[in-house]
């Protein structure tokens, strides 16, 4: 059983609460998932229209192969249809992003023999979250915020998220001490948060 830290209190995004709601990423996704439980195919079509670029983009980024990304995209959406209860509460876009990333990493690992133990699938994106966090986050906003990070911080973050590399693997591949990698990931995520807050508060 995978560990989860979500069962307790207050996983929240209040620090970013200045961000206003984006109907596509926040309200619509959760509402459409409600309708999926009623086997509403129109809601499914709307979900596909709204989110397939996100799912395919993450799958392509992780897998590096358009055909595999297409298969994975279909697999993710079929999973939404067959198990709509898998999404319970919270930010649908964030949840879908994590689900896609983890499924893609599962595929990636199934193709590769790794010397180290697998990274855990995920932190469950559930619990009492403040849905406004992803409000105005779109691809351009996040790309700009990532681009604003120093290379030494952005690289380990992207290797960890899209490459599925553990911090130890990142340290080995880059030749940077493990402690430095930990610090750069921590500093980079803090700075990324600050960049996103700065963008959305304009």
């Amino acid at each position, binding site marked *: 059983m995978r560990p989860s830290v979500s069962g307790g209190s207050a996983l929240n995004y209040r620090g970013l609460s200045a961000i206003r709601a984006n109907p596509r990423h926040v309200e619509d996704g959760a509402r459409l998932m409600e309708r999926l439980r009623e086997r509403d195919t129109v809601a499914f079509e709307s979900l*596909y229209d709204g989110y397939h670029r996100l799912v395919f983009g993450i799958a392509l980024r992780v897998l590096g192969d358009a055909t595999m990304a297409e298969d994975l995209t279909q697999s993710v959406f079929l999973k939404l249809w067959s198990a709509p209860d898998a999404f319970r509460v919270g930010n649908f876009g964030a949840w879908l992003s994590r689900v896609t*990333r983890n499924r893609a990493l599962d595929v990636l690992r199934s193709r590769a023999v790794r010397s180290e133990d697998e990274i855990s699938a995920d932190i469950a994106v559930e619990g009492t979250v403040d849905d406004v966090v992803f409000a105005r986050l779109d691809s351009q906003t996040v790309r700009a915020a990532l681009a604003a990070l120093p290379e030494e911080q952005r690289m380990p973050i992207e290797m960890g998220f899209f490459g599925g590399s553990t911090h130890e693997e*990142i340290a080995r591949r880059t030749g940077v001490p493990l402690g430095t990698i930990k610090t750069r*990931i921590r500093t980079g995520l*803090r700075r990324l*948060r600050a960049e996103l807050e700065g963008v959305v508060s304009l």
Partner: protein
Amino acid sequence: MNGHSDREEMMSLVAAYALGSLPASEHRRVSAFMLTDAEARAEFDALRPAADAIGFAAEEPVDSARSARMKERLMATVRAEAASAKITPIGAARSASGARPGLLMGVGLAAAAAAVFAFVSIIQNFSLRSDLANANMRANTLQTQIAANALVQNRDRQMVADLFAPDAQHYAVADGEIIRHGQHLYLALKKLPPLPKGKVYQAWTLAKDAKAVAPSVTFSPSSTGVAVVALPENADGLAAVALSVEPEGGSKAPTSKPAFIRQLT
């Protein structure tokens, strides 16, 4: 290592935990640590939104043909399943069994044991039925998807044959052409302007006896502005085809000035 340095070590891992880049063994340790350490929990709460946002950086326009293909397969699957799948609501049966603990009160040990045995049997039975239902549903989904894939492959082959048929009729439009072969009709467009966020291109058809256009397919071009789209309408009954930019999901009537209106004569 003393308790203080242990804690420092765990705190140094919280960011990698939020990013999802810890090995499973360390992931479990940090997960347990955060249950008891408020500062670690606060650090995680602060960093997780940033980590969750990273996926959005990968969002990309999807090639229109690929997008349409995926959608067609998925919709064929879900529509077929929605129409046919009627799974017995196991949950309802489980709820009914919830009254069983009441039966145990005030009865002898043997009766209680029998009741427990029966309860366990029922739960196991329900569990098996649930597994079986899920397996059947998965099998149905796969069969439907295989059928949908075959259908799409056949359509793709048909499209190629139509587009390159020597007797196909070509109607020039801005940025491309409309191609008709028999009853089949296609838009083959290039250099389409990029769409604003939340917008799609939508085709419109005008039937020979109609006074107003009817909505047809929606699509997004590739990143280079290319789109090859099959229109589902029978070309025999059409007098004209138009194209406009509409909100995602399509419109019932055009809401913007058409990019082109082309008579099929």
